[in-house]
């Protein structure tokens, strides 16, 4: 009885302590469970860095080599862990350098909190040294943002920032803190945010919509599921698999949905979209029911909307009401969290096999295999293909690696051919298509999941956009495996120039440096492969390495990625050559 009373007293009395705003920032991060954050110091954020120094046994700050690298690392961290990634930078250029990563996180729904220092509040608007209106600049690319000028606002605003970043459809939040607010002392106490008036992150599921969806699914003869990252973000993988299996529906994925269902699953029919698989693209325009789950009908997925799945009824499972009917009109919209919606849907579904319909996918896969895949994965002609490198990584990782890609040809090839056994294994920049994303994102991924094999795959172009993060790899001893598929071209643009601009290769040829020497300059083990015979051994050496490892593979210079839906064409006009 006695202890009971004391306990009650403790929980009801708010404990406050007089501390500085900068200490409060770090204490808030610790309260939110942040173990690692990525950033770069500078004048306006120095008080917070001083506290990070004091709290270094509780929270690990990773010094990136550029603020953009810090955001991508935070994104990689968030994507593999499902937790909020945190990046921190100073005012002015430090803050503006975060923008690319923030925009990437916004369009790919990645939970991230960015903290920026700001000039002292009395200097705001005076064009002070390193002053920039980062709240104004970042507002179109953040889910929410806010400037703090009083220390006492720090706990409440940061709690709100974490809540907004993570809840509902996740996204990036930026909090800008003036230097005087960092120095100011106040009575600190922390309470997590659990709701924000005016913000309804997860719409309530409408049972009648679920019933209507089930009725359509049960009646469909040729249903096709297209799933996206929503399945991963709501941790719906199990419920999703159960729905797919019970209803026997072929399921295809958008690039960000990859790995939510294992690649080897018999009902996984591959990727949709511009460089997706032949069968799901063609059959999108033949299905009688299109079931979209946690995806947003990006133009790279749909091609020409005028001819996209016009024959089919459409069910859209989605957490963000603004996505409903934005690009593709749905017959039934099921708003809400995917995990819960699918769990409610499951018992209403009839067991089904759709054997004939599934056979159509197999037949088209056979065509794609014969025309494209066999040459990509098992080439006989001279010159290494990107596909065979991915194939070799599959063999040696047994499909357990997390593959982090950059943007371009290698990305499409990696996503097409990488084998994924586990969810959250494909980390890439989908919506924004940010070259330079891969290498720093891989650092974040490896640090969030040190037990996993993390393989960064980049092209020679994107790699050089954030190549400086090799320094972060070295300093952090992050055992990332770094693969560069080098064709001495900006390959995807070159492919378009070849196909649509009569081979006028305007500024796409790259005269590259000695990549091995650069990696060795950062004290990384490094190797270069130019011949097919060396590939397996080199990949093996890389995978066996306990430390970071750099592998450059020189691939054929003018290889193209097929299949391909030309820009603006219909999904069923997908080309195999």
């Amino acid at each position, binding site marked *: 009885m006695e202890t009971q009373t004391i306990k009650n007293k403790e929980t009801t009395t708010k404990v406050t302590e007089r501390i500085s705003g900068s200490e409060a920032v770090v204490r808030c991060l610790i309260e939110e469970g942040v173990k690692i954050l990525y950033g770069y110091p500078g004048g306006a954020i120095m008080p917070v860095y001083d506290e990070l120094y004091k709290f270094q046994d509780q929270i690990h700050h990773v010094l990136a080599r550029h603020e953009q690298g810090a955001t991508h690392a935070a994104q990689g961290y968030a994507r593999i862990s499902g937790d909020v990634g945190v990046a921190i930078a100073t005012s002015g250029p430090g803050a503006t350098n975060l923008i690319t990563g923030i925009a990437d996180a916004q369009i790919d729904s990645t939970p991230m909190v960015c903290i920026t220092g700001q000039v002292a509040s009395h200097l705001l608007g005076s064009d002070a040294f390193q002053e920039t209106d980062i709240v104004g600049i970042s507002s*179109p690319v953040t889910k929410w943002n806010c400037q703090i000028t009083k220390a006492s606002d720090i706990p409440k605003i940061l709690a709100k920032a974490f809540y*907004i970043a993570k809840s509902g459809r996740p996204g990036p939040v930026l909090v800008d803190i003036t230097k005087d607010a960092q120095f100011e002392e106040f009575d600190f106490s922390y309470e997590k945010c659990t709701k924000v*008036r*005016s913000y309804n992150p997860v719409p309530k599921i409408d049972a009648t919509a679920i019933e209507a969806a089930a009725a359509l699914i049960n009646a469909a003869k040729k249903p096709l599921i297209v799933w996206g990252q929503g399945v991963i973000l709501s941790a719906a993988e199990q419920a999703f698999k159960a729905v797919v299996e019970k209803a026997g529906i072929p399921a295809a994925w958008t690039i960000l949905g990859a790995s939510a269902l294992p690649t080897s699953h018999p009902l996984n029919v591959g990727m949709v979209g511009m460089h997706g698989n032949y069968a799901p693209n063609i059959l999108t325009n033949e299905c009688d029911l299109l079931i979209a789950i946690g995806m947003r009908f990006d133009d790279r997925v749909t091609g020409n909307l005028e001819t996209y799945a016009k024959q089919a009824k459409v069910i859209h499972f989605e957490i963000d*009401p*603004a996505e*409903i*009917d934005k690009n593709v009109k749905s017959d039934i919209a099921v708003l809400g969290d995917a995990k819960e919606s699918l769990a409610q849907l499951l018992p209403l579904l009839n067991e089904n096999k759709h054997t004939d319909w599934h056979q159509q996918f197999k037949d088209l896969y056979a065509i794609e295999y014969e025309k494209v895949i066999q040459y990509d994965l098992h080439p006989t002609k001279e010159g290494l293909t990107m596909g065979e490198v991915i194939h070799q990584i599959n063999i040696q990782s047994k499909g357990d690696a997390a593959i982090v890609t950059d943007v371009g040809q290698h990305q499409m090839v990696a996503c097409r051919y990488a084998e994924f056994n586990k969810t959250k294994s494909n980390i890439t920049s989908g919506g924004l298509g940010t070259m330079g994303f891969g290498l720093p994102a891989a650092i974040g991924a490896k640090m969030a999941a040190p037990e996993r094999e993390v393989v960064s795959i980049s092209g020679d172009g994107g790699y050089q956009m954030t190549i400086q993060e090799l320094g972060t790899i070295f300093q952090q001893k992050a055992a990332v495996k770094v693969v560069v598929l080098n064709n001495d071209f900006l390959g995807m643009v070159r492919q378009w120039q070849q196909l649509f601009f009569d081979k006028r290769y305007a500024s796409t040829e790259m005269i590259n440096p000695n990549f091995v020497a650069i990696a060795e300059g950062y004290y990384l083990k490094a190797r270069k492969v130019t011949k097919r015979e060396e590939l397996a051994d080199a990949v093996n050496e890389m995978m066996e390495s306990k430390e970071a490892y750099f592998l450059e593979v020189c691939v054929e210079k003018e290889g193209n990625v097929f299949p391909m839906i030309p820009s603006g064409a219909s999904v069923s006009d997908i080309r195999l050559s």
Partner: protein
Amino acid sequence: MNTEKQLFTVSIYTENNIGLLNRISAIFQRRHINIESLNTSPSEIEGVSRFTIVVNITEENMKKIIGQIEKQVEVIKAYYHYDEDTIYQESCIFKMKSDLLFEERQIQNIIKDNNARIVTVNKEFFVIEKSGRKEEVDLIYSELKPFGILQFTRSGRISVSKQPMEISQMLAAFN
């Protein structure tokens, strides 16, 4: 659904936040939608602001825009209305030379016929105020113009809907 462009009045209830105007106007700007008029003010609920925006777009576009507006964390609720579903007004003021009041008797009639009023008169100038629908403001403007207007300004539309919007209930549900 009507696929023609038409005038819609958008009513947005929001938290009172500095950056929100920026976020909301960006939604229109990104899609090249010209804002015909925009007004922000306190609403009937303490601490809640109200935006009244008039745009000329298709209804399909309007619906998408409402979705994007409601997606903003600090927007409580957004609605769009056809003109016939709202009671709306705008207001305007004219500054004119005081001599005209004595030299041009017609001006007094214009003021009376348009249900406008004189706000102030001094030796140099006088000020006329008129509230009403857009056409009414256009009309008095065209009638006064020949006499020489020193300054003219008109407000954006403000409106109330005929149907209840039930923001208070919504806020109660959030809490």
